[in-house]
């Protein structure tokens, strides 16, 4: 997933321009009364809606995710039925577009459960696992990364060896074995996925800290006599936010896929818990007779992951002024050339 950052070395005439223009832009922005807030925050608040308007995919993604999130969070109030409400006599009711009833918009599954309700509860669990894993793995990884990056030396070497070793573990296989041992439950899923996922945060955090430590302004802070803690928290850590947010978002997508995969392999959650992966697994049995039971959760998972990816690329743009500039230029010039072409 990781996309390399655009190179900044080798300044060209165009870069020279954007650098200068940016300077001037910022000057103007602050004259307009935007001063006083950290740059990225400002970029975020200023750019979110503008960027969203420009980025149709991002906008759609945001809308879709909002709907999913609302459906998931308020499932107990919004869902027409419980996740395991129903019995075989109500099984396999067709969805509304195939002549079903409004009582079961997406129909029912082989068990007689309402598919829409299960989708909402399933998304609720899946998203919860995603958030929990991102939070736990993120906290753990970032903490270790900070320690490694800032302490350096032997601590760094040992921590990073640990990371290296664990990164080389065959993740899915280990996850399967661990879940088999711990028993499939929400807690063990969260634990296992966190166990397998913290390294990327540690590496990134360490990388950012190391890079930030080399920034002249960090040296400048140390030069004027800032204590290490202040250097860390005031001068180094704020560099982390944008990459951390983007990483967390992408990791969230990855976790959703991982949860679905584990559930699909039968090592996910157990009745009466339902997640999107559990639904996909449930649909597996009747894949040929009622393909919708597998396709609906499959498509929803795909869409969520897709939307999260779009969101991440939009975030990258929001956080990275250079990227914003590039996007804008691409759009504007195509527009400009079209207009010109029409004129001639």
């Amino acid at each position, binding site marked *: 997933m990781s996309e390399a950052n655009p*190179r900044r070395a080798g300044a060209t005439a165009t870069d020279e321009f954007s650098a200068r223009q940016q300077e001037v832009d910022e000057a103007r922005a602050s004259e307009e009364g935007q001063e006083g807030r950290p740059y990225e925050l400002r970029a975020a608040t200023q750019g979110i809606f503008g960027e969203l308007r420009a980025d149709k995919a991002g906008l759609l993604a945001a809308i879709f995710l909002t709907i999913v999130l609302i459906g998931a969070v308020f499932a107990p109030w919004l869902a027409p039925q419980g996740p395991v409400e129903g019995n075989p006599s109500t099984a396999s009711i067709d969805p509304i577009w195939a002549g079903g009833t409004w009582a079961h918009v997406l129909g029912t599954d082989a068990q007689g459960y309402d598919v829409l309700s299960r989708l909402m509860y399933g998304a609720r669990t899946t998203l919860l696992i995603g958030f929990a894993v991102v939070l736990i793995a993120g906290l753990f990884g970032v903490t270790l990364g900070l320690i490694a990056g800032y302490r350096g030396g032997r601590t760094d070497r040992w921590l990073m060896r640990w990371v290296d070793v664990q990164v080389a573990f065959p993740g*899915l296989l280990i996850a399967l074995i*661990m879940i*088999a041992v711990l028993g499939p439950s929400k807690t063990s899923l969260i634990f296992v996925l966190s166990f397998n996922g913290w390294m990327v945060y540690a590496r990134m955090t360490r990388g950012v800290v190391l890079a930030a430590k080399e920034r002249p302004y960090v040296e400048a802070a140390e030069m004027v006599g800032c204590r290490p803690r202040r250097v860390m928290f005031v001068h180094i850590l704020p560099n982390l936010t944008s990459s951390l947010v983007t990483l967390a978002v992408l990791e969230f997508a990855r976790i959703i896929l991982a949860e679905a995969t584990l559930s699909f*392999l039968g090592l996910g959650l157990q009745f009466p818990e339902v997640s999107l992966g559990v639904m996909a697994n449930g649909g597996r049995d009747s894949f040929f007779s009622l393909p919708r039971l597998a396709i609906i959760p499959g498509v929803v998972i795909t869409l969520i992951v897709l939307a999260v990816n779009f969101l991440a690329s939009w975030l990258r743009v929001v956080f990275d002024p250079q990227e914003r500039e590039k996007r804008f230029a691409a759009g504007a010039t195509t527009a400009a050339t079209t207009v010109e072409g029409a004129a001639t």
Partner: protein
Amino acid sequence: MGRYLSQRLGQGIVVILGVTTLVFVVTRMIGDPVNFILPLSASEEQRAALRSDLGFDRSILSQFGSFLRDAVRLDFGNSTYFRNEDALDVVMRFLPKTLQLAAAGMVMALLLSVPLGAIAALRPGGLLDKFLVTLSLIGLATPQFFLGQVILLLTSVKFNLVQFGDGPWTHLIFPALTLALPAIGRLTMVTRSAMIDELNSQYVKAARAKGVAARRIVGVHALRNAAIPFVTLFGWEVIRALAGYTLVVEAVFDWPGLGDLAILAIRERDFFLIQTIVFIVAIMVVLINIAIDVAYKIVDPRVKL
């Protein structure tokens, strides 16, 4: 080079040790496998005998010690599920199928993602680029099992195209494609962004100023440089495939490979088999990691090993 290799091998040994230790400890937490091995009618004496035969009555440390000692001699004990067949033999029987699948998938990924990424990078923001990017994102966003199921449904059932499972090489196409698609999505994105970076770089500008043909700039200069980040990510994809996603694909297509075997071993609590599988997979991961670095050295003369 020597220092590098010895370092990497040392690290590899730590990795393998770490993985096997973890799996050893974890599997010992599952519970007594003797009940799984013996018929339920077996007497307590028979159970005890088997337990001491397999060493489960000893302390976990001493078990681990003898496990390691035997592992060094490539003796991982016998599979309990496969009727006392040597666990390594069992793994080696299933391994070729997985390697076949992974190799086919990764070759597909390589052959498709590089040109697609390069084409997308030619006009970033253009229509073709947007199309390819969206396609790639969909590819990497789709759960592999779902992809596999849909492919299965469409190819084998709806259109009766090609079969799968054991048989001629054509059976490999769709499982391999399923394995490859998410990788193709990710690698296309990587190739694309690396190519965009390279095409914006100073040396490309300089090459254009020299009058080097556009085809050569893209196909030779930018591509070779873009290969540098690509190599790492491609290596990761190979690892991902071998150590994880073949599991899913094999489950969906009933491909008789290591992944299928792993799920079976876990389900049947075949400890020795689980350990052997993990050990072999860990070795492959370590070797691939070293291969990545060597490949790195090949594409980038600046890298010193």
